[in-house]
């Protein structure tokens, strides 16, 4: 497989690579000089493997890297409701739900983001 398949967006590739390094930092134990090269090569291969697996997941998902199809659009547009209900359900006091509502109102006034609901949906999916 070529270093980076031509259809893969450079920006997505770079961001994925940095995200992988952040979640799975390379091994930091000290090695002798001989071992260093071997470990570095193994690390590089491991990183490449994770990046390819991430790309595979993106490219094989029905919506993949071409945005949001109708199948999940419903979910995503309701992301703020999903979050509010979760915060109410999982907390004795309504404080967190109220705080989220305030943050959400501020978010709606922000012009820079195009995919607000998709990002909120991601946070919902990653929440504990």
């Amino acid at each position, binding site marked *: 497989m070529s270093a980076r398949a031509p259809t893969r967006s450079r920006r997505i590739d770079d961001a994925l690579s940095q995200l992988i390094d*952040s*979640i799975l930092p390379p091994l930091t134990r000290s090695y002798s000089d001989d071992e260093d090269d071997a470990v570095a090569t193994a690390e590089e291969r491991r990183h490449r493997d994770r990046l390819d697996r991430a790309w595979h997941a*993106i490219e094989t998902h029905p919506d993949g*890297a071409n945005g949001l199809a109708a199948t999940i659009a419903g979910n995503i547009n309701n992301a703020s409701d999903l979050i509010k209900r979760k915060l109410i359900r999982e907390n004795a006091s309504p404080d967190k739900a109220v705080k989220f509502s305030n*943050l959400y109102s501020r978010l709606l006034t*922000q012009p820079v983001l195009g995919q607000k609901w998709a990002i909120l949906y991601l946070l919902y999916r990653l929440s504990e």
Partner: protein
Amino acid sequence: MPSQQDDKRQAAREVIDILHEISILLNTHLDRTELSLCVSLIENGVNPDVLADVIKELRKEATLAQRDE
């Protein structure tokens, strides 16, 4: 007089501030850098369901790796 570029950068920082607070409310365990990377990925068209699965998979691997050390 701040340039348009400065305004845009300031607005981007504010958005990440807001999203980071929401992220903390939801216990996503994303740090600010990871959150910014996720925003970039989604703004560039990556599906949030797929990205969530990729992150969960990486975290599972990280947990196993720590256990082996």
